[in-house]
């Protein structure tokens, strides 16, 4: 295992220290327990927006703390959901008296830990709502699974719920925006090469010379199926078609298209994928009105990408365009 780290067990803490030093103007980093808050603290009367999950997905979630997005983020160990003793102070810090929305990716661990924290916060008088993100169409949504996973769509939920909170929406309204984004967003990913969790020290899965994992998650977990390597255009189609079918995106509708890198893939390759995805959407009569290309929800140094499509309406577009000033997403300010 070759990594730019010191002690595998210190990775999360040292990352946070560096993050805090690099973004002093935007965020405040708390180390024990670990959570990140927007510089300046809770804004009285504003709904707080908090998210969190395992580390290793940087810039998710800490990179999205700041004006117009998250009030606090809670990082767990690498690929391991955070614990209630972190989520609770983060929620308290984000509460400006108008309640807090938890944005939680749909993994058993995240759900259980945020649930526990929410119960304890409620007992303290904080009105906590939970928006579960489950955009990954690679996983069947059936009674017989833990449901769909939350992946790159999470960034869109955080951005738009954050923008709604920033413009002064009520707790009900921010929660509703979050759910509306979830209802209208779908994703699917693939990996060309696995990643190595620092404290594990070996690759999360093994792939042959010409093998890829289709439907891979963002935790280095194996995907839905193993397949042969194909040209980028064909691979893009394999990701995008299930996304569009599941979303039922009709001709004439408008979309936000995200091509997200898993961490170890060059930006140039993401643009090649974006090119094909935009072509396919054009063929289907869908207008790509907003887009994002880059490493937004990663799995350490995994090589691969995911494609996310959100059905846009006027309000969501406005919330997307609203000013945001975070370490990883910034415009309009």
């Amino acid at each position, binding site marked *: 295992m070759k990594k730019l780290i010191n002690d595998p067990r210190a990775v999360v803490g040292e990352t946070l220290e560096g993050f805090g030093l690099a973004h002093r103007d935007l965020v405040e980093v708390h180390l024990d327990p670990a959570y990140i808050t927007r510089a300046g603290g809770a804004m009285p009367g504003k709904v707080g927006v908090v998210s969190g999950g395992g580390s290793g997905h940087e810039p998710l979630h800490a990179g999205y703390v700041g004006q117009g997005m998250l009030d606090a983020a809670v990082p767990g160990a690498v690929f391991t959901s955070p*614990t209630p003793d972190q989520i609770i102070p983060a929620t308290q810090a984000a509460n400006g008296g108008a309640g807090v929305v938890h944005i939680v990716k749909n*993994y058993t*661990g995240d759900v259980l*830990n945020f649930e526990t924290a929410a119960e304890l916060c409620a007992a303290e008088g904080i009105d906590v709502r939970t928006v579960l993100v489950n955009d990954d169409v690679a996983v069947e949504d059936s009674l017989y*699974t833990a449901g769909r996973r939350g992946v790159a769509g999470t960034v869109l939920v955080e951005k738009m719920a954050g923008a709604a909170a920033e413009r002064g929406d009520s707790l009900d309204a921010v929660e509703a925006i979050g759910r509306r984004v979830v209802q209208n967003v779908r994703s699917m990913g693939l990996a060309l090469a696995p990643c190595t*969790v620092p404290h*594990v020290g070996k690759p999360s899965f093994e792939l042959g010379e010409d093998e890829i994992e289709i439907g891979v998650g963002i935790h280095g977990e*194996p995907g839905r199926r193993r397949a042969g390597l194909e040209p980028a255009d064909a691979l893009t189609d394999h990701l995008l078609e299930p996304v569009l079918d599941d979303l039922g995106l009709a001709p004439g509708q408008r979309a936000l298209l995200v091509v997200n890198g898993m961490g170890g893939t060059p930006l140039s390759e993401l643009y090649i994928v974006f090119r094909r995805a935009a072509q396919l959407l054009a063929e289907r009569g869908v207008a790509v009105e907003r887009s994002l290309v880059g490493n937004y929800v990663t799995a350490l140094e995994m090589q691969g990408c995911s494609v996310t499509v959100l059905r846009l309406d006027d309000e969501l577009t406005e919330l997307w365009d609203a000013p945001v000033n975070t370490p990883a997403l910034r415009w309009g300010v």
Partner: protein
Amino acid sequence: MTELDAAWADRWLRECARVLAARREELIDLDRAIGDGDHGENMDRGFQAVVEKLDEGPSGSVAAALKLAATMLMSKVGGAAGPLYGTAFLRASVAVGERDALDGPTVEAMLAAARDGVVARGKAEPGDKTMVDAWAPAVDAAGRAGDGEAALAAAASAAEAGALATKPLVARKGRASYLGERSAGHLDPGAVSTSYILRAAVTAAVSEISAGAE
């Protein structure tokens, strides 16, 4: 015969820490196959924290020991296992109440409470390829055994058998469920760690000295 008292409970937790540290890699590999590879690290980190807490002084009662474990696991493990084991130990602590030492029926009650906690949180049923597949047969076996120690031994053996029986199953809860049919052919890491935790309870009961000396 050893009393299943406060000292035993502390030894149990220390023995858990020892075994889970030793089994760290194995649990990581089991979880890499059908999950995200962190279960061994999660359990090791959690029980190390339990031991650090115990090092500040004996917990004083079985219930206090179980509660201490619940709190530390809840705040240090994270993932799915943290809240599940946290709830299990918390419910077990409540079930034990103010008893100084456990006999057969209270062992059974303790394990049943733990199992119910896991089910309440995780909503898994037997056969879903989760730690419930170790807890559920353990409780049943404890109910059919005699004194406390026998109940623990029966529970541990049943948990082991239950864990082994997860191999052919297709997961329907937790991260492994995302793999669908591909989850078959592998042991469930949480079921295996449950069997280690229950076996540790037996070890702590039979070998007062070796386990307590650590």
